[in-house]
């Protein structure tokens, strides 16, 4: 729009049309030309923009403006949209031609990668990246031994399956992630649940009879990045019967064009006691401050 403004008075009547004929002071929100409406929408969140598209034609047009959505997308959105598959060659071509609003809409739905064991999405209001890694993406000591671990299908996991620990001495869950995060600070969590749950007659039933050993020694959480960031903490697992996000630490991304390699773990390997009755759902990465479930942060 700056280019047009600079063309001077000749452009003004094209721009303002009816509004130019209106008596001074008679302009209202409904008379704002589309580009001005877009300037207002630029300063609102995605859900707000989509809501106000219903106001009138000018706002509907403004709500579709490329520059509005370009400002909302993470700086490396072209790289992120590359993770989206499907549709074959036709799909690829469509994605290359897609406007920024369409891209924002697609990226705000989960995009899965690494064989469906991981997925990321943009949280709708500010377009920041969130990520989830399923238990199948994690390296769990003893996972193949049915005396210790089993996979439990459940709708309480976005991956439809959690790893359930019956009992073990050496409890260790390790994960790795290689990703280009948009600039910002993120928090990494382990989503776990003390107790086994199921549905009986449509109601959720939780059994904690096999929960044991977690009050003997704390669990250690570790997070490190390829550019030297480190976090270490520990805490006792508690709150049986509900999902808890245990905060392993924070990391900062300063370069969206460079993949950050993360290594993280949750462990309790004191072999003098067994522990068990735990569901491990996933590892979550959220923009710092954006948390949705119960969060527990350990002490250093």
């Amino acid at each position, binding site marked *: *729009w*700056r280019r047009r*403004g*600079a063309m*001077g*008075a000749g452009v*003004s009547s094209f*721009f*303002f049309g009816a*509004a*130019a004929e209106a008596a*001074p*002071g*008679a*302009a*209202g*929100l*409904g*008379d*704002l*030309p589309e*580009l*001005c409406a877009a*300037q*207002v*929408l*630029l*300063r*609102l969140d*995605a*859900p*707000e*923009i*989509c*809501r*106000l*598209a*219903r*106001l*009138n*034609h000018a706002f*509907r047009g403004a*709500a579709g403006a490329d520059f509005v959505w370009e400002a909302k997308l993470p700086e490396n959105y072209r790289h992120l949209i590359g993770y989206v598959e499907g549709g074959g060659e036709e799909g690829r071509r469509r994605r290359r031609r897609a406007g920024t609003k369409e891209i924002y*809409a697609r990226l*705000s*739905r989960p995009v899965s990668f690494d064989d469906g064991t991981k997925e990321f999405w943009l949280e*709708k209001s500010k377009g920041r990246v969130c990520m989830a890694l399923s238990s199948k993406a994690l390296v769990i000591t003893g996972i193949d031994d049915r005396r210790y671990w089993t996979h439990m299908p459940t709708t309480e996991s976005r991956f439809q399956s959690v790893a359930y620990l019956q009992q073990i001495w050496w409890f260790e869950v390790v994960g790795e992630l290689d990703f280009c995060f948009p600039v910002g600070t993120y928090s990494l969590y382990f989503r776990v649940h003390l107790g086994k749950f199921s549905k009986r007659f449509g109601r959720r039933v939780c059994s904690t009879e096999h929960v044991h050993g977690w009050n003997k020694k704390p669990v250690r959480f570790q997070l490190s990045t390829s550019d030297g960031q480190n976090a270490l903490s520990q805490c006792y697992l508690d709150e049986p019967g509900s999902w808890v996000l245990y905060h392993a630490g924070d990391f900062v991304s300063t370069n969206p064009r460079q993949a950050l390699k993360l290594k993280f773990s949750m462990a309790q390997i004191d072999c003098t006691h067994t522990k068990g009755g735990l569901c491990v759902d996933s590892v979550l990465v959220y923009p710092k401050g954006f948390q949705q479930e119960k969060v527990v942060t350990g002490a250093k």
Partner: protein
Amino acid sequence: MAATPADASSSSSEAVVGGEKSNKMITLISSDGESFEATEEAAKMSVTIKHMIEDGCADDGIPLPNVPAKILSMVIEYCNKHAADADDTNKHVADPADADEDDDNNNNNASAGEKEDLKSFDASLVAVDQATLFDIILAANFLSIKGLLDLACQKVADDIKDKSVEEVREIFKIENDFTKEEEEAVRKENAWAFNE
């Protein structure tokens, strides 16, 4: 209402990054024929006017057929205030060699105070009735004054942010120019933003 530079010492001979500043006055003419004077520096906050000056079209005054006097005087007030601010910032960094620590702190305090000043000036400039606010947006857009457009649009955004579509229509008197089918289509194409 003539707009004049607030600070006479801006014409002193300090070395300022960016070359010489002229104190030439530019005449701006509102849609209803009123003439306003502004320094070239303030006037150039409008990219539109800046280009006209550089193209040599400004000598007999610049007519602005879409900007009524009431709005033009507010725009010039904004430009004066913000041009003076940019000027002061330049002055503070003009002689880093001379500044000792005390000086630096004083300068920082002065800028902090000025920034507060500017913020409250900006806030009161847009604390106006809707019609005026929209006229400011139209003018800032036409004149390409980014800071003023930002300010006014942010105010409108803040005002409509938490209101329902019906409320916004009612308060701002927006006519629903959609047919039933069109409105349904808009709802559908934007539903993705509200799921989950």
